[in-house]
């Protein structure tokens, strides 16, 4: 059976034009997908967690849930982390679970675009949905982001080469500029590459902003970029009919972090006094935007939320997972839809290894290997349905294409079971 317009649950592009062929309950073909997406669909059955385990030993689902309830109800400062690669129903249950345990809730933004959110809370943001950019942008700047390797179909679907209402000629109708510390796949297809010194983004952004404001700077070069080039770039930006900056971790996770984004937002805001200009973060995980959205509408805050006082509190740097774990503050963790043991700094990963961890996973990962409880779950977007939010905030419904292995449930269902167990315990 052929499924059309299938949504890809991999990156923040959330491409929704895939064609997936299913035979006898197995995916046998994928069309329109990028390499990563194809592999996600075709290999979703490989390396799976085969059964729930407790202390490394196979257990029934009931035993694993009971053990999880025990760990969470015995913990003084439990951490619920991950969320960004699952659907919104599961995220909603995770919020409820963190609230019920008086724990801390965090998602992967704390190690990717958290600084983007901090900047937004400081100064705002001027953004648009991706179709708006496809239809109108004649100037596209990739700053510290490299879609040719991280968001493979971004350039063809939404930005560089896509044809749009007011850019019918596609690539020829757009000027593409890459600002990065080294040449990348994206810079090779760009009209211009501007090499900025590592950790020099803030200075370069502020120099551009000053130049756009008409302030003459005396420097000869800023962050390794000659002042002539800075002035020329400022003119190009002002002269665009519709410009956009797509920025990635090169900006959020280099020196300056949220201050870099603050400067980028300020530059773009300033440009709006001359022309139309926007900026958009290149979100990585396919539903990290959804994790922020759900957590925000339910608690007021996008990540790093503490429920220990019975009401939500927010403090990145304190309630963020890396900090909680590195300080040895969390005494238990529930991880879903993420692999922090691989991606966290070593101090935080060590902190995770020292405490009882419950992991909801499809695959065997470094995190699942150090967990006390592992519960296999269905893959959202392949074996379970639900909502995901694209990097620009557009919500799309993920489809269920095949049945999960018997006895395997969705993240939302498993979290629901743990939550029921916790409530049952509280009532006794």
């Amino acid at each position, binding site marked *: 059976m052929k499924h059309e317009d299938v949504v890809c649950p991999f990156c923040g592009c959330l491409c929704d034009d895939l064609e997936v062929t299913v035979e006898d309950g197995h995916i046998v073909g994928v069309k329109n997908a990028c390499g990563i997406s194809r592999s996600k669909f075709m290999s979703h059955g490989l390396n799976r967690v085969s059964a729930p385990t407790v202390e490394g030993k196979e257990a029934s689902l009931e035993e694993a849930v009971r053990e999880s309830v025990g760990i969470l109800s015995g913990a003084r400062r439990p951490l619920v982390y991950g969320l960004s690669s699952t659907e919104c129903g599961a995220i909603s249950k995770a919020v409820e679970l963190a609230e019920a345990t008086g724990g801390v809730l965090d998602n992967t933004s704390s190690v990717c675009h958290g600084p983007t959110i901090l900047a937004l809370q400081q100064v705002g943001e001027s*953004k648009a949905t991706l179709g708006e950019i496809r*239809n109108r942008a004649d100037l596209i700047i990739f700053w510290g982001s490299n879609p040719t390797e991280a968001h493979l179909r971004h350039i063809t679907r939404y930005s560089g080469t896509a044809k749009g209402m007011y850019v019918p000629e596609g690539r020829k109708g757009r000027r593409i500029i890459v600002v990065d510390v080294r040449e990348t796949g994206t810079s090779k297809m760009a009209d211009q590459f501007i090499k900025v010194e590592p950790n020099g983004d803030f200075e370069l952004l502020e120099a551009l902003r000053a130049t756009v404001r008409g302030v003459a700077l005396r420097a000869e070069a800023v962050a390794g970029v000659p002042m002539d080039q800075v002035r020329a770039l400022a003119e190009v930006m002002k002269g665009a009919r519709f410009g956009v900056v797509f920025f990635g971790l090169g900006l959020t996770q280099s020196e300056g972090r949220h201050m870099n984004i603050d400067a980028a937002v300020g530059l773009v805001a300033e440009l709006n006094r001359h022309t139309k200009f926007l900026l958009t973060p290149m979100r990585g995980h396919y539903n990290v935007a959804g994790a922020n959205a759900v957590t925000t509408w339910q608690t007021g*805050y996008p990540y790093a939320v503490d429920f220990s006082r019975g009401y939500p509190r927010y403090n990145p740097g304190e309630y963020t997972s890396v900090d909680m774990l590195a300080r040895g503050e969390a005494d238990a963790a529930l991880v879903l839809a993420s692999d922090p043991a691989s991606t966290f700094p070593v101090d935080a990963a060590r902190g995770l290894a020292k405490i009882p961890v419950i992991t909801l996973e499809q695959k065997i990962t470094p995190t699942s290997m150090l967990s006390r409880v592992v519960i296999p779950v269905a893959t959202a977007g392949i074996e379970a349905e639900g909502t995901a939010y694209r990097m620009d905030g557009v919500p*799309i419904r993920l489809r269920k294409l095949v049945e999960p292995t018997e006895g395997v449930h969705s993240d939302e269902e498993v979290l629901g079971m743990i939550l029921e167990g916790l409530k049952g315990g509280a009532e006794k």
Partner: protein
Amino acid sequence: MKELAIRNGYVFDPLNGVDGEKMDILLSGGRVVEKVKRGAEEIDASGMAVMPGGVDLHSHIAGSKINIGRLMRPEDHRRDQVPKGRVTRSGVGYSCPSTFVTGYRYAQMGYTTVMEAAMPPITARHVHEELADTPIIDKGAFTLMGNNYFTLKYVRDGDMEKLKAFVAWLLRATRGYAVKIVNPGGVENWKWGRNVHGLDGNVEDYGITPRQIISSLARVNEELGLPHTIHLHCNNLGVPGNYQTTIDTMDVAKTIKPRDERKTTIHVVHCQFNALAGNNWMNVRSGAPKIARYVNGNPHVTLDLGQVIFGDTTTMTGDGPWQFNLWNMTGNKWVNSDVEMEAGAGVVPYTFKPNNPANSVQWGIGIELALLVKDPWRVYMTTDHPNGGPFTHYPEVIAWLMSRKARTDAMNAMNKAVMKRTGLIDNYREYTFSEMAIATRAGTARALGLEGKGHLGQGADADAAVYRVNPTQWRPSQYKELEKAFSRAAYTVKAGEVVVKDGEVVATPTGATHWVNAKVPEDLEKEFIKDFEADFRKYYSVSLRNYPVEDAYLPAQRVHAAGGASP
């Protein structure tokens, strides 16, 4: 079957001509009925005011815009933290409350139905996900259409039939309740960083005017027989002198023939922001008398206030260029969010200051509109939450409308411009309980065409509020008591169940989402879809198949028919 009797209250049910009579309200199976069995649960409402559950027809409670507000304002949340309760979830309040808290706080004030005023079609799922997480109250959302590519295209082509098919299709696809228009043409121009100025300005790339967009949508709205009129945020919002644009805009809908039983053809939202006279923010004064004179002479218009509340709030509208202006005026943080093919939005925090002359005039304009429009059925109380201020301040607005002393005391504490540049000081009108019930439930329910809401007649939805104030003894000098009574309902009943008791939430049922199943003849539908699909495929960044909102997003739904057809 759950039954409930609200006994001996002074009942205000203006749609059924009941004005403070002492009577029993009997509820069974989620409806108002004639009789209940012995042993039904009883509420002793003696000495208290009983009204239908409140109906808010314009509030921003769900979707990407309010969620941007929540996201960008942790400092706002910190002032109003809400702990988890026995039956309630935790959250935050003030200007951008979390979804759970939104439901609780409306119910605590005796409100049982609230309409989200601006839903961008492509993010409709987001609106519905949040509405599903908003407990207790019934709700609905108005679909943004005034700057939609297809609207502009069909207006340009003069193709009213396809426009009609499009409006019907989009309401169904987004599960929307009404046609919302925000700064028609201006938001489209903003996509190039510009605006339109007035009704006859040029909408770039289309060569049409806001006037054409409004009249076309108003006509199509009535031909489809939608329950509510067009719901319009006028051009030139926030521009001193704009009262003239507002009057001209109202006049555009004058010759439109309304659907059968309705007499109105246009609802002008948060009119305070569009009732400014003077030529700049230094000499701004009230345009309310001129607008009221027009409204009093023209029965096709309804409006809501958008009352200003002093203090810090978060402004959010679908009017991107206006929010850009506000950012330029205030220098506060600014989020702009353009939506492909359809709409836009902006969010800017703002503080209304009592010592600021312009803000005090704005405060006065809202109240003045409410007092000068003679027909209480056509002017409704809102703060355009959270633009004028958070909805939790409604009880203060009620006090200002029902007590001249309340507003005199308020005026004495603010800039004297309110005395000089509005006519408020010479206005002695005070709303009666009945008029207040019209402005907050009966009138709004009627304007929305929500037949089961806003009244307590046989068969009405069993939504009611009991307020701890004795209308036979209350005097306007006791406005503080009134405020208290309306802040914390003695009882709120939703679908026959007591959800609030003594101002505390005691149950959190799921409220229904209302939407309108509008239809056009099959041939027209086919012809439209062919044209629509081709453009959709070329210009949208999602597939058409993934665009309409699925049933899964509406855990409880109430479908309304258009044009008298069955839904």
